């Protein structure tokens, strides 16, 4: 008797606990998603609607006016193109470099490998603003200022530590017997790596690709300092310097530029998120 009472009581308690959990999760989700919702809603309103209180929570007369204004601006499209080139370039470079380095870290315990790994990870600690003092004159002497190369190198460097770490985690899960078998079959070392091992860590490479692309897309410091020509500018400094400076009160336009700068990445991110999560789980947590 008392047993059944306990059971139903326990169930009720559990139910109450679940309701509580849902409440907290829903509150968090609403708070965290609201700014994105508001950015999108602002972009489809006109400026005089924006200056009205109470705000229109759902736009009464949605309009694509601001999108026409932003996307017909050649400057904006140039920023966009530059950001795509820099992010894609640094993604490819980061993958290639991390793929090789992390393989060495996973497979070989060579003298200095510990220190080398530490050096890779510690690069995040080096203050970028201070490095810029030296990099600026170095790049100036090498003629790299106002080039994609400079930005690609900088963004690659930021993405490299975690990328190496993630991929090492993936290599660690592959048994060394695979390489040994390939060696017996007469497959060269580098060939084995490229033809047998690399295809097996594809999910890891995808995770690194998403991560490195987002890092490149997010960059602001380097785009601001290593680029002086407007036609070489990337999106983030573009929004702040060109849009923000000129149209401080044109919130519809600023939010539209923001939507354009983040929506494509956001959509790709939504589609590929599960690879990113599994990559981080396998690489960063177990590695």
């Amino acid at each position, binding site marked *: 008797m008392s047993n059944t009472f306990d059971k139903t009581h326990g169930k009720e308690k559990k139910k109450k606990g679940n309701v509580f*959990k*849902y409440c907290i*999760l829903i509150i*968090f989700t609403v708070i*965290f998603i609201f*700014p*994105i919702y*508001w950015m999108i809603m602002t972009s489809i309103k006109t400026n005089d609607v*924006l*200056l009205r*209180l109470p705000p229109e929570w759902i736009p009464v007369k949605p309009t694509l006016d601001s999108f026409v204004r932003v996307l017909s601006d050649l400057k904006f499209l140039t920023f966009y193109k530059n950001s795509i080139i820099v992010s894609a370039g640094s993604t490819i470079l980061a993958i290639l470099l*991390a793929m*090789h*380095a992390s*393989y*060495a*870290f996973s*497979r070989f315990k060579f003298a200095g490998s510990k220190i*080398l790994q530490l050096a890779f990870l510690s*690069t*995040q600690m*080096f*203050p*970028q*603003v*201070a*490095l810029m*003092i*030296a990099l600026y004159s*170095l790049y100036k002497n090498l003629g790299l200022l106002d080039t994609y190369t400079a930005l690609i*190198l900088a963004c*690659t*460097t930021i993405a490299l530590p975690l990328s190496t770490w993630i991929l090492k985690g993936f290599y660690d899960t592959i048994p060394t017997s695979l390489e040994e078998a390939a060696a017996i079959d007469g497959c060269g*070392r580098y060939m084995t790596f490229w033809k047998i091992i690399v295809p097996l860590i594809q999910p890891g490479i995808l995770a690194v690709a998403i991560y490195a692309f*987002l890092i490149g897309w*997010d960059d*602001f*410091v380097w785009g*601001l*300092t290593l680029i002086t020509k407007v036609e070489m500018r990337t*999106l*983030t*400094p573009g*929004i*702040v310097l060109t849009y*923000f400076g000129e149209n401080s009160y044109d*919130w519809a336009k*600023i*939010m539209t530029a*923001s939507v354009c700068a*983040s929506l494509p990445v*956001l959509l790709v*991110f*939504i589609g590929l*998120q599960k690879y990113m*999560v599994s990559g981080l*789980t396998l690489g*960063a*947590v*177990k590695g």
Partner: protein
Amino acid sequence: MEQNTMINKTNMKKTGFKLNRAKNDRIYAWALTLPALLVLAVTIFIPMLQVLRMSMYSYSMFDLNNIVWNNFENFTSVLRDKEFIESFERTLLYVFSTVIISFVIGLLSAILLNSPIKGRNIFRGVLFLPWAIPTVVAAVLWMWLYQPQYGVLNYILNQLHIVDKNINWLGQTNTAMGSIVIAAVWRQMPLMMVMLLSALQTVPKELEEAAIIDGANWFQSFRNVTIPCIMSVIKSVTLTSVVTNFQMFGFFFTMTNGGPVNSTTTLTLYTYQKAFMEFDMGKGSAIGVIWLAFLIVFASAYNKILGKMEVNSD
């Protein structure tokens, strides 16, 4: 006897082969890491040595013919500079409040998402989204939410009677830093949450259950079983977050540019001003060196302290 030498010979051959192989391995491993190392050398290690050298000299862009060793004057003048000390304190305030708040919210959401409830993948997916928004876009977006007259935040707070007049969040010395921290937490909590959730999923369920059976309540089991199991992840995500937030530039440059009255001038902005507005490269470099030294000391102490609480779940 003969047999013995035979064995010896094959042994020798084997060790010889092994030595050769070890050497080969070493060369192969270095060759694999070399390209990445070269890039890091060009973008980080060589510039850092240069910064270290510059920090010892009087090095002003206005006076390039007069670069002289100045007996650590850059360091002594920086350390005596009240503005430097204040921006250092502000950086610590920003970094630690952002990391601690992100960690607490991130851990709480991760725990909730780790329990068997319906729709947890959807919740996780939606909560992860702000991380895909570029920092500068997040900064501009929050400026619009904080906008004093037409911003939605003031409107909501007014309606809820939490405030009775519009607040200029980013324009007042007492609210500016907090407002930036909130924007930073919004952008950074999601990654923290996903990493902690991944870690929680690796904790063996039997261990937690065993603790409950032994009479521990949920909180005790969490503190004594779960936390030690995920300590290594806690350690690395918080440390990474501390180190990267020290570098934070986008939010400050965009939202306040250090103002009002320097209340949000952090180390990055201060160094930027010294080096790129006042062109005092020596002083800028000295700040960079002090900053790096602080982070190295902090990271090793942090690793040591949290490392003691770590348990290998394998």
